[in-house]
């Protein structure tokens, strides 16, 4: 039924268009011929000149618009091409990619959350031991749970070295992005991150050694931290 109505509407529209054209053609047919018009209709010279000027003006305006539209298209194409080429060239460089990653990490938010996944392991399989310990430090605390192992060393100045090994499942930690300078590091072939405090606080290294997630925090230099991390058994 609806289709039928649509068809009727279309037929009516066609008829209406034809009727409007026919009506206007009949009207036009009643108009005087051009020769008669020349005798009966007067157009002043002033009006004629104004019309010619208007047509010239209109012609130049159209041309200017066309040039403007063409220029705009060209500019857009040039900008897109340049941006794409520049982007492709820049992304080909490792330094740029690393910088972009740093920038993204830095601007994303103040606190960075690092999510890691470790394999499910039996806690008894894993023993956490430091192969290198700076002078003056001794073990002050040791905690072993089903989720992690934590060891804490202290020296005479009450400066601490804390080491965490996350054994089971998923874990995450947040680090204040505005307090630390972040840089990549390599621990025995595994990539990690060094967080150097800007305010004289403790420094941190995190990495994943293929089995467990590691977290080392101490009031030591980057070099010393990496040395400790590399010698963890």
């Amino acid at each position, binding site marked *: 039924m609806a289709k039928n109505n649509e068809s009727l509407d279309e037929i*009516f*529209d066609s*008829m*209406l*268009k*034809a*009727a*409007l*054209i*026919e*009506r*206007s*053609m*009949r*009207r*036009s047919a*009643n*108009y*005087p011929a*051009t020769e008669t*018009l*020349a005798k*009966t*209709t*007067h*157009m*002043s010279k*002033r*009006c*004629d000149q*104004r*019309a*010619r000027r*208007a*047509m*010239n003006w*209109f*012609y130049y305006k*159209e*041309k200017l618009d*066309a*040039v403007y539209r*063409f220029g705009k*298209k060209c500019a857009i194409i040039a900008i897109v091409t340049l941006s794409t080429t520049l982007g492709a060239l820049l992304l080909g460089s490792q330094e740029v990619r690393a910088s972009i990653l740093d920038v993204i990490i830095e601007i994303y938010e103040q606190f960075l959350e690092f999510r890691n996944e470790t394999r499910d392991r039996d806690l008894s399989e894993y023993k956490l031991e430091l192969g290198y310990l700076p002078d003056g430090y001794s073990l002050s605390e040791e905690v072993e749970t089903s989720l992690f192992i934590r060891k804490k060393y202290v020296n005479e100045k009450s400066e601490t070295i804390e080491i965490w090994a996350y054994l089971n499942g998923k874990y995450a930690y947040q680090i204040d992005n505005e307090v630390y300078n972040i840089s990549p590091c390599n621990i025995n072939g595994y990539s990690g991150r060094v967080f150097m405090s800007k305010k004289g606080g403790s420094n941190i290294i995190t990495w994943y050694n293929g089995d467990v997630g590691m977290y080392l925090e101490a009031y030591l230099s980057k070099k010393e931290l990496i040395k400790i991390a590399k010698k963890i058994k």
Partner: protein
Amino acid sequence: MLILIFDTEEERNRFLYLHETYSLTIMNTIQRFVSDTYDAEDLYQEILILHAKHINEMDFSDYKRARNYVITLSSNLCKNYLKKQKRKIERIEFYDDADDYTGEENGPLDWVLEKDAFENLIKELDQLGDKYRMVLELKYVNGFDDDSIAKELGITKKNVQMRIYRGKALLKERLYKKAYGKK
């Protein structure tokens, strides 16, 4: 594109051709509505510019069609101009044959079989108010889209669509009434 930009002479000739060929027709149409010479000349400039804007929609190869296009557009713009100026139409178009319409009521079968439907539709168009006929003519005779009609008549696009809808509805209602003798 560059060819289009610098394709000058032929394009310019088209605009001048429009003025040289149809100036008297446009002026004659204007003088049917506006008696003041200065007003008529001002209106002529406006109408000529509008024709120039829509020059690509005109078929110059067919003189009759092009002339019809010019007359229809010009008379509608004159009516609109007068409406805007809040003046009454000073002269009645001499070709207005609305009085010929007798309003005879034929049965629906005769109405269709006697091929009167088309003629009746033309007569109903004469009876239709200018408000509706103008938008219908600009749309179907001049090929303007709704946006262009709205711009030239100084009304909103929604208004244009509403006038087209109501104009058609009025015509249908009157034709139906004519065919069946009731609403």
